[in-house]
């Protein structure tokens, strides 16, 4: 690690009991009760998530459902609703992105944020973390545990220290004090096997691990030894990668005067499709799913989608799908204030079927 590198401020934000929390937020009768998501109590399957109340009974994710029932017969078993979680996740991540552009989602319910460049506005990384927690609570009714540290490794460990609704800050000067008392298994990459072998070397805490020379770790663990050596010192220079792969591309327009005639709307859809088609082509993408968005004069909004046999970036093809979908709406009978055209389910790698006819 370069000692002259500026100190980074990294946040690891980890939603508390995410799946269960979403259900408990939306159904007050579940609050305070052991809630288990996934697996049917009668059949097989494993638990996908458990509320803290259920965890108190020893139920964890991946506990077989049948065992979960034995551990806690009074638990409420719910079917997972992944589309609902994904939608929620997107909204929470949007809040994260409000604080910094550098957001790296790790899974549906956790992300790393690099807020190093945002300290002027917020004063400190801790203040950013507090503001994020506040907004997630106010806007989404959920709690998030945040670790604040100079790198991803420490932020990740820190977010787990004070769950739920935790905030753990590791200032650069306190790295060793923070790590040393932890058990080695608290380090990422230390599973039961590594833990047992370290134990045989007389190493149980991170502080003890830090005392082991590099060559001995390398002899014992190969390349993984060097990682253990760095992790024991709280060193990790992996950047937070913003790797926001484009998931969709769209164009929409609100009209100063509501559109009433289908012919007018068809023309507008032609223009919007042209924009989407050009955008897709520019990025070397093709969309397999096309979505029409219509907002009526009373602001009610609907979307209609169609999935094609082959991906397209062809404006003519997009427009003809849009015009068909428009006829599956009440447009024409109701005035329209906004039209939108979107492509999703994008195919990368530039494989795209070229069109025989120029767009009409």
């Amino acid at each position, binding site marked *: 690690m370069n000692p002259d590198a500026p100190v980074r401020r990294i946040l690891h934000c980890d939603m508390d009991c995410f799946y269960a929390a979403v259900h408990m937020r939306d159904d007050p009768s579940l609050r305070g009760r052991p809630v288990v998501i996934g697996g049917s109590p009668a059949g097989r399957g494993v638990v996908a998530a458990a509320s803290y109340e259920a965890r108190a009974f020893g139920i964890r994710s991946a506990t077989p459902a049948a065992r979960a029932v034995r551990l806690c017969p009074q638990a409420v078993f719910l079917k997972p609703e992944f589309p609902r979680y994904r939608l929620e996740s997107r909204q929470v991540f949007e809040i994260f992105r409000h604080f910094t552009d550098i957001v790296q989602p790790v899974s549906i319910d956790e992300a790393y944020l690099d807020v190093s460049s945002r300290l002027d506005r917020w004063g400190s990384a801790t203040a950013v973390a507090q503001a994020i927690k506040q907004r997630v609570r106010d806007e989404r009714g959920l709690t998030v545990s945040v670790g604040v540290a100079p790198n991803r490794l420490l932020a990740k460990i820190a977010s787990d220290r004070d769950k739920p609704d935790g905030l753990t800050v590791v200032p650069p000067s306190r790295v060793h004090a923070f790590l040393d008392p932890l058990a080695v298994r608290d380090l990422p990459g230390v599973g039961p096997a590594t833990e047992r072998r370290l134990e045989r070397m007389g190493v149980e805490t991170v502080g003890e691990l830090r005392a082991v020379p590099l060559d001995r770790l390398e002899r014992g663990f190969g390349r993984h030894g060097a990682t253990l050596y760095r992790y024991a010192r709280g060193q990790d220079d992996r950047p937070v990668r913003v790797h926001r792969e484009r998931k969709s591309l769209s164009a929409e327009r609100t009209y100063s005067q509501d559109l009433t005639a289908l012919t007018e709307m068809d023309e507008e859809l032609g223009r919007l499709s042209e924009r989407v088609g050009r955008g897709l082509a520019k990025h070397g993408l093709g969309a397999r799913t096309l979505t029409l968005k219509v907002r009526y004069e009373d602001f009610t909004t609907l979307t209609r989608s*169609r999935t094609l046999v082959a991906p397209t970036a062809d404006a003519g*093809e997009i427009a003809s799908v849009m015009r068909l979908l428009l006829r599956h709406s009440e447009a024409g009978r109701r005035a329209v204030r906004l039209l939108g055209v979107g492509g999703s389910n994008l*195919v990368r790698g530039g494989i795209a079927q070229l*069109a025989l006819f120029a767009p009409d």
Partner: protein
Amino acid sequence: MKIRLKRSEFLNELAPMQGIVERRTTIPVLSHLLLQSGDDRLGLAATDLDVSLTSWCQAEVEGTGGIAVQARKFLEIIRAVVGEEVVLELTEENRLKISAGSSRFTINGLSADDFPTLPEVDGESAIALPFAQFKRMVGKVIFAVSTEESRFQLNGALVKLKQDGLEMVATDGHRLALVENGFEGAVEADGVLVPRKALLELQRFEGDGSLDFRRSEHHLSFKLGRRELICRILEGTFPDYERVIAKDNDKVATFDSRLLAEAVQRVALLTGDRARAVRLELAAEGAKVSAANPDLGEASEEVACEFEGEGLSLGINPDYLGHFLSAVDTEKVRLELKDENTQAVGLPIDGDDVRYLCVIMPMRV
């Protein structure tokens, strides 16, 4: 109404009705067949409102009447029973008694009055097309008809009479197939768009008689023997297809049709389902077909070919190439190419058709 008829003959006429009947319909009567008594015959009809089929069977008829019966169930029954003869009897309101061998069925039907009135196509005199040839021509273009509902004007083939010739063209916007054959006495006329479903059902007809073709303002009629298929003309403007048939492709590769088809099919095993593309590389030494997929791996195969011109490489949908290669009926084919962004043109070598070609737009890989 009581009707006695030969089971085998009846089955012959019942079977093609199944293709017309809508399987998933919100209008119950469209999953039904109309049975209607006539003079010494039983009339049959099926429709999905766009395409209709009528036919008849010779029968001994007592009284008059009609009923609509659930098409699939009715066929299953007539297939399952034994005996050479079937007797149908309209009993009480909308119930039909079926007797064959020692079996007795009484099935519930719908009133014949609920069955849609089928359009009639009369007026102009019919044009007699040689059916066997017509069927062969349909087989050479139908794969290129679009099944994307949104491109409704491409959901059928253009059938066009020319001076002493008949032409059929189909395209889905990515590839196009065109076939033309001699048809003596024909006079140039506007083309008409025949929906895909009508073509598919016509392809199932058997026989080598003449297919009487008529058109009215909105409908077409195709009559072969006792069967008449009526369909609504597909509305819309068919694209200017001659414009996209590349004329100056200067690179020409000659292949054995079967060898190329098999190689493409094998290599295509390693293409994904989302965007299927194989790479076709042509050089003086020969051709290579290859595929690479980040999830699956790579495949390649050399294929013998005669090639003139500068080498080139292009991506192509293996299904599009495969469809052409299985429709073409000559031992050898010629691919005319220009570059990786220009449509390839596939042609038979020593074919019987006046003109047959398939234009395929490449894929960007």
